[in-house]
């Protein structure tokens, strides 16, 4: 709190209020700008909230504010190369039926207080979550872990065995590996075992060295407008020769706030990278103003890297007006996805015809079902087809020019998150022109309305979907994911189909890369395209600006060692290890 008070004091000084400087204010050492990495983090507001909470499992936590740099995973995963990168772990092995995953911890790994990082910490984290998921249920991910994992057993200091509740060949990618928003954070047993109420624990006290970290940086000071982490001379990685000492001596993470502000800060070299700019034209403008700023693909379209959230128009499966598949198809034919991408991204976001993001490991599956998509006319903009299907479904145009049946117009509210503010109005206009009385809303309440299924249409991206294997996305349409209206879910299609379930179920037991998966995906997608729970619209790109004024070796198309997005919790840490100073 001392630092916050200092801010308050400084401001009070501006206000003309005489204020005594608190005695003994801590001095931090000065680090040259050339050795400082300044990151504009994800924040809608111009401040960090809850920046004194490093408990990843607490309900109110947000580690994207920069505290993520104080953690490391067992494994990283680079999907561009489909490459698993062992970090705190050295390697893993499976038993024959994928019910036991054994992980070998790297020798010499250590916490920032000098205590070794061991299998006990991993096992403690697992067992803490399992216990919580079966009991108090107030830690994040706990219920998920408890549903999947029986227990974690310490074999020896460097070996932990994770015993699963069912054969799960994907488990390595669900909990031990960190990529996008997946993976667990490991907590030090020697601190956490004595904590009574883990949900109320913040694991934050700079004086005590909390949060303890295994990474090369630990938190030096925080306030609501910046999180500062300094490099530790005694980082285990350099000591053991596992990895050279990173060049980044200090990391400052500031709340980006409004996008314009982020752009301005990049243009004036105040920050080195930031969260997603989204708009490719804005990126071009930024790169024109500051040629030192680049993107994953430079100035070449799509000026960014693919994201795991392709945009779709979801039909709320609980809304009776979508009971007739002809109406859903009619709406699909009314949408001109090409025009959507033209208007929202000058055509730089690819049109999508499937629910999968087009990551390299998933491209074979997207391509493998193209013939089915074509058979069902997926993605064809055809107003005549809309007209025909609506008439077949018993609708007629009313005096306002909108399709109606029994006095009720087809359409209604279409909610979206503010992130999709560009797409929503375009879709609305296209649908209106085709005779659907649709209105787009993106309010602070929209996320809840969508998740609770309280509107007929939703514009959204896939959450919890696939990255390197099609199962996760397909499971979103599995009837076990079906949630009644009023209970929140990200699987907003509220879709269920027994035939679809039968096609998906066997994939659970098949390891990623199993050639039998393709047949199951085709069977499932046959149903999906036929039933059309949503209309795929476009792929989504992260347009991450990277400033080469002070730092180089950012991840790029030709040097794709990691996706550059800063809004995923662990990948920026990996990037920070790899950055090279200019001076």
């Amino acid at each position, binding site marked *: 709190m001392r630092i916050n008070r200092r801010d308050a004091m400084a401001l009070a*000084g501006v*206000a003309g209020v005489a204020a005594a400087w608190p005695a003994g204010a801590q001095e931090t050492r*000065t680090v040259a700008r050339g050795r400082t990495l300044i990151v504009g983090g994800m924040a809608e507001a111009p401040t960090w909230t809850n920046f004194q909470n490093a408990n990843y499992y607490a309900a109110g936590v947000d580690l994207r504010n920069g505290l993520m740099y104080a953690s490391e995973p067992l494994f990283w995963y680079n999907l561009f190369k489909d490459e698993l990168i062992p970090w705190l772990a050295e390697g893993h092995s499976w038993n024959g039926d994928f019910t036991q995953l054994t992980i070998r911890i790297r020798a010499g790994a250590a916490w920032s207080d000098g205590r070794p990082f061991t299998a006990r910490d991993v096992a403690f984290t697992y067992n803490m979550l399992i216990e919580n998921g079966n009991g108090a*249920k107030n830690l994040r991910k706990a219920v998920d872990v408890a549903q999947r994992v029986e227990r974690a057993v310490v074999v020896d200091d460097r070996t932990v065995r994770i015993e699963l509740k069912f054969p799960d060949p994907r488990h390595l990618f669900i909990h031990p590996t960190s990529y996008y928003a997946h993976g667990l954070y490991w907590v030090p047993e020697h601190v956490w075992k004595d904590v009574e109420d883990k949900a109320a624990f913040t694991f934050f006290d700079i004086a005590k060295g909390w949060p303890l970290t295994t990474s090369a940086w630990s938190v030096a000071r925080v306030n609501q407008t910046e999180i500062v982490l300094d490099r530790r001379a005694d980082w285990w990685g350099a000591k053991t020769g596992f990895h050279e000492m990173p060049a980044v001596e200090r990391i400052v993470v500031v709340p980006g706030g409004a996008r314009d502000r982020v752009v301005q800060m990049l243009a004036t070299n105040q920050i080195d990278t930031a969260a997603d700019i989204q708009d490719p034209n804005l990126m071009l403008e930024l790169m024109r103003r500051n040629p030192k700023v680049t993107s994953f693909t430079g100035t070449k379209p799509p000026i960014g890297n693919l994201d795991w959230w392709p945009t779709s128009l979801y039909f709320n499966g609980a809304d009776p007006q979508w009971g007739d598949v002809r109406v859903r198809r009619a709406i699909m034919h009314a949408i001109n996805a090409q025009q959507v991408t033209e208007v929202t991204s000058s055509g730089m976001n690819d049109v999508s015809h499937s629910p999968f993001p087009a990551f390299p490991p998933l491209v074979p599956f997207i391509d493998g079902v193209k013939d089915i998509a074509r058979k069902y006319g997926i993605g064809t903009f055809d107003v005549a087809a809309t007209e025909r299907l609506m008439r077949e479904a018993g609708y007629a145009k009313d005096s306002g020019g909108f399709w109606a049946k029994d006095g009720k117009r087809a359409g209604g509210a279409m909610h979206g998150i503010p992130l999709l503010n560009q797409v929503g109005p375009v879709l609305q206009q296209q649908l209106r022109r085709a005779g659907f009385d649709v209105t787009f809303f993106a309010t602070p309440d929209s996320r809840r309305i969508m998740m609770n299924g309280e509107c007929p249409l939703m514009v959204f991206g896939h959450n919890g979907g696939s990255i390197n294997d099609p199962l996760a996305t397909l499971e979103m349409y599995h009837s076990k994911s079906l949630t009644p209206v009023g209970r929140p879910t*990200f699987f907003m299609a509220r879709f269920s189909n027994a035939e679809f379930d039968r096609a998906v179920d066997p994939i659970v037991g098949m390891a990623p890369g199993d050639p039998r998966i393709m047949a199951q995906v085709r069977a499932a997608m046959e149903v999906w395209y036929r039933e059309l729970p949503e209309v795929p619209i476009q792929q989504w790109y992260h347009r991450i600006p990277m400033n080469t004024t002070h730092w180089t070796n950012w991840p790029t198309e030709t040097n794709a060692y990691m996706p550059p997005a800063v809004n995923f919790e662990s990948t920026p840490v990996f990037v920070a290890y790899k950055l090279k100073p200019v001076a």
Partner: protein
Amino acid sequence: MIAAIAGRFAMLVLVVWMAASVNFLIPRLADRNPVAERLAQVAAQGGSLSGIDEMVKSYEARFGLDRPLWQQYLGYLGDLARFDLGYSISNYPMRVADQIALALPWTIGLLGTATLVAFAVGSILGALAGWRRGPALARLVLPAFMVLSAIPFYLVGLVFVYVFAYRLEWFPTGGGYTLGSEPTLTVGFVLDLVGHALLPAFSIVIASIGFWALAMRSMMVTIEGEDYVLFAEAKGLKGWRLFWTYGVRNALLPQVTTLALALGKVVTGAVLVEMVFGYPGLGNLLFESVKLNDYFTIYGCVIVLVLTVAVTMLLLDLIVPLLDPRARRRAS
């Protein structure tokens, strides 16, 4: 006198209690669950919503949201009486009092300063324009400021940001101070703070000078016609002396009353300015917590607002009669 103060204080408590009750109820009218919303938002980062229902129940119990509304209301009043604002729901386990303590200095620093500057400049301008022998210039520029005062200051702010920050690049586009700089009480840092506050402050000042000037001018016009001024003039008092001691001093008192109220409102009315300029103040805190329906933080912000305005009113009621003989006579 003591009885009067006690009575006035009882009135304050009554108004604060009623305001607290109304504002307790309003967020509850929305069909929203702050726990579920926050958990869903966090889960959106983590990709999984499994087990969210159980978590919601667990946290509702923790925050006492599972109790009947009247029990929650009584608990709320009890906490309030002890000045305990509780925990933020969406930023648990952060305390609401800490959130407010973080936001308040920014708001007071920017809006407080700007309001005071606008008040000072506007009052002097208005006084000069209202004084018969004041400079003609004051009368000439006054209409321009009055027209500007019709325009909300966030619009003025938008124009300034575009012209001075984006086009001319004379000022930063937003924020409280230069990123990565050390927040220390050095001349350099304070200058940096001032540099960041200048543009937003300037747009507030420009857009509100007219308001103060107009009020001051009409007071001056009235006062100039009063007998004591004519008398002082007849006694041969010199222009400037007359202006300050008889004109400004007497016209200022109602202005100060308005100023106190304006300063009370500074605490809230700032969401848009803070948003346009990326300033991390109380308006921003209120906006964010309203978006997530974080009851406890909303209550905290509103209570700060209610208390500021109510206490300002109380102080005014008690102090103005001491300063103003006219009001003293009215009171007796």
